[in-house]
């Protein structure tokens, strides 16, 4: 079992169909498969133990992921935004590797580590020129029939300790794709705009899903809202995945431009962070032809495990029932091929409505790091995400389990406090986190961002707002105002940074 099967099937069924559009260049499925087979030879010749990518999205990412799969070595895309020292520390953990990307930088920071380094263009060109010998079938590593080999290794962002190496086996990724995507289900005119960086699980799953569906991949290597809108218009993009900050910037650009040609968009999926209600409401208006899907997943689960589909979005928007309206902020329901449970502190399964930790089980769930597996004896993966499931099976996320504020033994989720704060007309963004307290162990601190043109509300007013809507234990003891909250490039709020600020 090998993920290279996905590209082989696509190239078998539609060799001349356009698979990929990147910076004006077009690749067919047949050309990509031939290049992946060439890459397999290059990898073999280099004696690399890993194939690493230190680069923005390009055809090299597609050729490398399948070339590595054919060669039976893990593909390890790296975050090029990391500082030199951090990057060098990751590179040494995968030496010797075939590293594709910024030659000058790799040689400078990891020149002594024994890597083979190729610039993006060299790699793509050599992979195309290298003609493999023999029958293609030999490229399916027969020794690995059960799919136990590692297809992908992704380093976690590692905010507290050294980054962990999460591994996804061929069987995990194939389980995900075969279970969720119908082969060749896309129309010939369908095109998916991929803007997530290659080192993110959503960037990888986007490539695999689109290739198996025979949906053309349109790559935007560096995001800008104008560039995104231009590609949508030019390539008649039908599907797109965005993180919340991207969608919010796209909406601003559309409002600035007055009119944008986005009628080709039929499906917009989003995930990777909390979507502000205001943004999704505006988006539903600005993209009337598009169905919206909220996808929830983690690196360790090979991407999506729960989703809120287009019908749920429309129903929530049209409903008068507060419970149905609230679903616009939910993660939707588990996909049919995975199971999800909410568990309490002692591992007991909690009933509907009770908050706890989200556990996931399924073929696509690896839950595994190079150092050790996080799965329990029954194969359940503790996500460290806190949330609850309502009585209709809709999953709601309250934040990372580590972000839960424990005040005098009472567990409080930052999300519910933030949701209340965001109802204030002067507050544009809010983050609640635990601050040390002599009396309670922990108590609530909040950082707020003001809306343009609004004066800061008085502290007693903010406290009254929280007290009126929630219990008095949720009332913040410390309030600071910031110009903006710290987010990473994927739109994830860096709570730890806010926590440090509030602790000072």
């Amino acid at each position, binding site marked *: 079992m090998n993920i290279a099967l996905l590209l082989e099937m696509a190239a078998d069924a539609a060799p001349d169909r356009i698979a990929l559009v990147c910076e004006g260049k077009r690749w067919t499925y047949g050309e990509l498969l031939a290049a992946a087979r060439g890459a397999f030879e290059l990898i073999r010749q280099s004696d690399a133990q890993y194939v690493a990518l230190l680069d923005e999205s390009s055809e090299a990412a597609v050729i490398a992921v399948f070339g590595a799969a054919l060669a039976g070595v893990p593909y390890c895309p790296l975050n090029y935004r990391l500082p030199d020292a951090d990057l060098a520390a990751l590179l040494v953990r995968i030496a010797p590797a075939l590293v594709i990307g910024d030659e000058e930088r790799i040689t400078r920071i990891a020149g002594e580590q024994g890597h083979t380094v190729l610039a993006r263009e060299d790699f793509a060109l050599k992979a195309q020129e290298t003609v493999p010998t023999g029958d293609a079938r030999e490229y399916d590593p027969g020794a690995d029939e059960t799919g136990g080999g590692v297809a992908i290794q992704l380093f976690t962002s590692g905010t507290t300790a050294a980054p962990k190496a999460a591994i996804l086996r061929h069987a995990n990724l194939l389980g995900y794709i075969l279970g969720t995507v119908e082969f060749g289900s896309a129309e010939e005119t369908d095109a998916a705009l991929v803007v997530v960086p290659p080192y993110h699980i*959503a960037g990888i799953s986007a490539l695999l899903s689109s290739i198996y569906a025979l949906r053309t991949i349109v790559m935007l290597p560096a995001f800008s809202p104008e560039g995104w809108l231009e590609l949508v218009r030019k390539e008649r993009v039908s599907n797109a995945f965005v993180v919340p900050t991207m969608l919010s910037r796209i909406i601003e650009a559309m409002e600035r431009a007055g009119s944008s040609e986005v009628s080709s968009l039929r499906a917009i999926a989003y995930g990777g962070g909390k979507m502000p209600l205001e943004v999704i409401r505006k988006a539903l208006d600005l993209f009337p032809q598009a169905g919206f899907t909220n996808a929830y997943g983690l690196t360790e689960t090979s991407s999506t495990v729960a989703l809120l589909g287009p019908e749920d979005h429309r129903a929530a928007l049209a409903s008068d029932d507060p419970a149905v309206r609230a679903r616009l902020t939910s993660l939707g329901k588990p996909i049919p091929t995975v199971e999800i449970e909410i568990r309490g502190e002692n591992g007991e399964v909690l009933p509907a409505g009770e908050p706890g930790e989200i556990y996931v089980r399924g073929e696509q769930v690896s839950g595994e790091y190079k150092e050790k597996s996080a799965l329990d004896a029954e194969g359940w993966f503790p996500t460290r995400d806190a949330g609850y499931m309502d009585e209709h099976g809709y999953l709601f996320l309250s934040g990372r389990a580590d972000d839960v504020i424990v005040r005098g033994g009472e567990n409080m989720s930052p999300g519910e406090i933030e949701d209340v704060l965001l109802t204030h007309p002067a507050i544009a963004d809010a983050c609640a986190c635990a601050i040390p307290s002599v009396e309670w162990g922990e108590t609530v601190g909040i950082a707020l961002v003001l809306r343009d043109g609004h004066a800061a509300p008085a502290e007693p007013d903010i406290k009254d707002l929280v007290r009126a809507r929630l219990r008095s234990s949720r009332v913040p003891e410390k309030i600071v105002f910031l110009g903006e909250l710290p987010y990473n490039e994927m739109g994830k709020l860096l709570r730890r940074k806010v926590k440090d600020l509030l602790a000072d």
Partner: protein
Amino acid sequence: MKPGTRLKSAACDTEVMVIRSAEGTIECGGAPMGEGKPADAALLAADFSTGTLMGKRYVDADGKYELLCVKPGKGSLAVDGVALVVKDAKPLPASD
């Protein structure tokens, strides 16, 4: 038959990848499938000639067998003479 094994039809072009399997004989076009192709092609049995479709998953009634068609052909799939059927997958909205 181990998951991940690729089997070829003796009677047509069909190839499948085994996703789930038990002790029975997996057949295509009325003849047993194997990892290699026989020198002489088997005759396509009329009862097993409705064809296979690329990318479809074929299952038995008990859920013991699941085969993914990776190359289509004229024969149809069976286990011990009992025809397999296409697994109906509920289409999900594209999420990535």
